[in-house]
């Protein structure tokens, strides 16, 4: 597909913004056109937060997404708000550690990932977003996994470089 339009939604602190940025960055490294756009409320914590990522072979005009090729929901309110935006036949990723409800959509491919539990299994609560990222990248093919790894290497430098192996590992953990 020439255009990938992704919505990633959750609450502040879950790292949804970061994984969106990483996909956009990876897309750029692959020479694609990309946009990343966040949305959040005025509260510092606990409000909902989401971002939109578009990766395309041609120039992107609108950075907003009304029909997503894939949607990722990291908490329940996000499921309610965004499930309807997946286009028929598109992908809906659900963090099943926190979202126990089911989707109403039967015309989309649903992919449930126990991100938090997998993260705990990897001994680091905080990589649940990377677990999801891995799933999204492989299932959608929005960018190449190598590009994501390259991005990781650019982002996790200095102090953070020691978390690199774990983060890389998290990318494939969803499959296990």
């Amino acid at each position, binding site marked *: 597909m020439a255009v990938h339009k992704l919505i990633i939604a959750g*609450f502040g602190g879950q790292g949804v913004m970061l994984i969106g940025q990483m996909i956009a960055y990876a897309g750029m490294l692959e020479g694609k056109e990309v946009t990343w756009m966040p949305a959040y409320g005025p509260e510092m914590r*606990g409000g909902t937060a989401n971002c939109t990522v578009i990766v395309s072979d041609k120039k992107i005009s609108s950075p907003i997404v009304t029909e997503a090729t894939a949607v990722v929901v990291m*908490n329940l309110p996000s499921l309610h708000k965004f499930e309807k935006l997946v286009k028929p036949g598109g992908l809906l990723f659900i963090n099943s550690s*926190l979202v126990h409800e089911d989707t109403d959509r039967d015309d989309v491919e649903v992919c449930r990932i126990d991100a938090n539990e997998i993260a705990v299994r990897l001994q680091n609560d905080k990589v649940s977003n990377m677990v999801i990222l891995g799933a999204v990248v492989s299932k959608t093919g929005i960018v190449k996994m190598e590009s994501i790894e390259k991005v990781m290497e650019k982002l996790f430098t200095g102090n953070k470089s020691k978390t690199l192996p774990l983060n890389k590992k998290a990318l494939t953990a969803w499959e296990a």
Partner: protein
Amino acid sequence: MAKGMVVFDEERCKGCELCISVCPIKILSLHETNLNSKGYRPASVTDPQRCTGCGSCGMICPDGAISVYREEQGGHQNEE
């Protein structure tokens, strides 16, 4: 019987642990497993029997999640 009693409104709790930090006899802690609907692990009493009803936890809770009761008679009154 316990001199005091604390009642938590778990839905209001944000798991900030301020109450835990000020309880003079250290009988509060965050719930091990429960999550409330906002996704926080709410505070709870580990050893209700020992609560003196001093009121400190209620006093410091920023979210109105705690009510504190005390036996009517006897005991010195910490709350003013």
